[in-house]
């Protein structure tokens, strides 16, 4: 049963039949293959909201590298497509199986294998959660600095596939900065051991970096070696209220001027805070005065105690208040209070989720931020006036999450949303920004990729895809604009 597909054609594979399930079961064991409707629905979807429905053909859960190789070879031979699958917390449909694909889940490959405190690295199977990796690092007095709300569920392999960012990119960079090596099963079941854990390795193309952010189109990451960092001696966390993002950015500049090491600089608007408090059944905001926009600031400090860090941040915030950049501020005085302030920001996405927001995740040059928000509001007015705009994100990185909520008792028309997206991404592009800051492209942003990538770049990307995956078996229909789909 030779499959004639190729990466250029990018056809989705056929839906697996009972003989395919049997063949996969012979590799991983019958208990680790499922065509149960509940499994297919659960593993076919991620956290994205879009015009598709979950329709996986099978779920396969291999336990070893050899099983992954054999599954890949089996799928290639039988003309089945593969969706590599981690914690499925992605927000652009990169892990969606909607064409009867075989979901290859790393759920059973969760081991944290080894922490090397001298090299400051951790080696783990790709199904380990980001939280598990961080916990293992902390047992050695180190930590894994990629940090985001879903880290208890998100798996390392998925964060590599999406180059996950999060709340400390402003200080530590995204996942890409921490991948020291990975083991990839790619087309033909070839096993590539890339990077191999070294910080310095100038031996030509950094192939492991091609895999970071490739959204599972080049193969399945089965193991990773990640860099670790030394935790700061002390941190201080404050939440400030401000009139606008421009005011918050003025504070951000002031913090740099005061030589503060900013480890997070987040923002969320008043309606986001309201949603979080509502979800908890609480009514009062944490600040004494309300503000249209809030910022969460975290700084690191080399002093002996958190008190010194709080003093340093207090001084800058007092200056910012005198200069009129912020309206009010509250500071955490204990680790528990710091966690409570953080939870206000980190709960936003979860608090909005029940209303099925239409999401955009954009980066802009900081100086264009104010202009962008004003014009984005105008676009909402023009295309989807009944939609409710919610803004939050990682302001220090210039990364805003633009969420559009449907009215409480209705829906937003798909055509209107498509027109809004096109206008929004056009605006982002005009202002020198990117249409995906950290979520990736997946299914959701595929139509707009050419706004950010030139035809020459897209042609190179396709050539790279074909070199890794000549049969086009890995995640067809994702990322590349004209790559199949169903």
């Amino acid at each position, binding site marked *: 049963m030779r499959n004639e597909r190729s990466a250029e054609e990018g056809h989705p594979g056929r839906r697996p039949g009972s003989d395919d399930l049997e063949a996969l079961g012979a590799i991983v064991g019958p208990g680790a293959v499922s065509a149960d409707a509940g499994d297919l629905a659960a593993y076919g979807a991620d956290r994205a909201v879009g015009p598709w429905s979950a329709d996986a053909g099978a779920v396969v859960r291999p336990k070893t590298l050899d099983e992954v190789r054999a599954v890949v070879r089996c799928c290639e031979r039988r003309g089945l497509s593969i969706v590599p699958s981690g914690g499925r917390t992605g927000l652009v449909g990169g892990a969606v199986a909607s064409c009867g694909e075989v979901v290859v889940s790393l759920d059973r490959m969760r081991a944290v294998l080894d922490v090397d405190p001298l090299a400051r690295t951790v080696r783990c199977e790709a199904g380990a959660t980001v939280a598990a990796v961080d916990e293992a690092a902390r047992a050695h007095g180190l930590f894994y600095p990629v940090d985001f709300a879903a880290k208890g569920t998100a798996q390392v392999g998925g964060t590599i596939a999406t180059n996950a960012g999060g709340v400390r990119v402003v200080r530590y960079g995204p996942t890409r900065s921490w991948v020291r090596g990975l083991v990839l099963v790619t087309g033909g079941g070839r096993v590539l051991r890339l990077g191999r854990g070294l910080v310095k390795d100038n031996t030509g193309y950094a192939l492991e970096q091609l895999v970071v952010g490739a959204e599972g189109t080049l193969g399945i990451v089965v193991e990773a070696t990640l860099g670790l960092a030394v935790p700061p001696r002390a941190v201080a966390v404050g939440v400030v209220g401000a009139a606008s993002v421009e005011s918050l950015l003025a504070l951000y500049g002031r913090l740099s001027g005061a030589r503060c090491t900013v480890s997070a600089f987040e923002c969320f608007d008043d309606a986001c805070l309201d949603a979080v408090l509502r979800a908890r059944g609480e009514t*009062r905001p*944490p600040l004494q005065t309300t503000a249209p926009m809030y910022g969460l600031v975290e700084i690191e400090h080399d002093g002996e105690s958190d008190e010194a860090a709080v003093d340093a941040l207090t001084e800058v915030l*007092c200056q910012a208040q005198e200069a009129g950049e912020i309206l009010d501020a509250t500071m955490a005085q204990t680790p528990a*209070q710091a966690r409570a302030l953080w939870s206000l920001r980190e709960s936003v996405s979860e608090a909005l989720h029940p209303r099925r927001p239409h999401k955009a995740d954009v980066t802009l040059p900081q100086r264009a931020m104010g202009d962008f928000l004003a014009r984005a509001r105008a676009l909402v007015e023009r295309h989807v006036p009944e939609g409710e705009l919610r803004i939050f994100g990682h302001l220090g990185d210039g990364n805003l999450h633009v969420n559009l909520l449907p009215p409480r008792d209705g829906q937003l028309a798909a055509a209107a949303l498509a027109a809004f997206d096109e206008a929004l991404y056009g605006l982002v592009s005009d202002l020198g920004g990117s249409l995906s800051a950290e979520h990736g492209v997946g299914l959701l942003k595929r139509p707009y990729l050419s706004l950010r990538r030139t035809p020459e770049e897209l042609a190179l990307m396709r050539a790279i895809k074909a070199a890794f995956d000549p049969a086009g078996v890995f995640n067809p229909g994702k990322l590349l604009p004209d790559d199949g789909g169903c």
Partner: protein
Amino acid sequence: MKILVTVKRIPDPDEPLKFSGGVLDTSAVKWVPNTFDEYAMETALRLAEHVGGSQRLAEVIVMSICPAGQRQHVTQFLAMGGDRAVVVDHDDRALDAQTVAEAIAAVWKRESCDLLIAGKLAQDMEGNEVAQRAAALLGLPQATFAATVAWDREAGSLTVGREVDDGVESKKIPLPAVVSVDLRVVLPHSVKNGATPDDHAYQEGPRLASLRGITMAKRKKVDVVSLADLGVEAKNTSPIVHAEPPPPRPPGQIVESVDELVEKLATEAKVL
């Protein structure tokens, strides 16, 4: 009115403890305020402030026993809104509950206080006896485990709701008095002072310090006194003779199937 709020620093309950030589290794400890003392402070501030008005109805004095150089927690309570502080310069871990209560009683008398508000217990030793001992030493009425507090300023009394096993007990006590608080006292409508509108909803939980509170806290008056100044003898009739961590729990197991789970429950856990 003068409200005395007693506060204690404890090892951060969210951090693992280190032990060496049969004692807790305090050099590795991150000190944080006892949570129930934060509730006590919040209660005092809600009684003292007139939301919507400008007049303050009470002075809130923070008291703590700790080495004078390690009073960050006292500054934190002042940043929440305490007016001033009295620090008794002594290692509180070397004192028993009776001595702590004697020191509190001595400060109460020195400051001529009207109301003592304490957390129901400190989370480190979970003694739950200091407020009661202080009330006995001072010969004052007490209401422990307060979930609600309403102040009748004209009558000079408090009505305290206490959550007991079979419901809520409402207790009216004349001032001066001792109150120890439980966690529900920081719900939005738990404390009333007769001046702040009764329907005013406070935030849930103890308030966070504002920027202004933090900058002001450093300038607030802190009296440092010794136990000798208070005429209290340092005693410890219940010293800790040995401390060690509990044995580690065996790790959990991940089973591959329901059958395996049932088998393990029957043969290993022996619960089926």
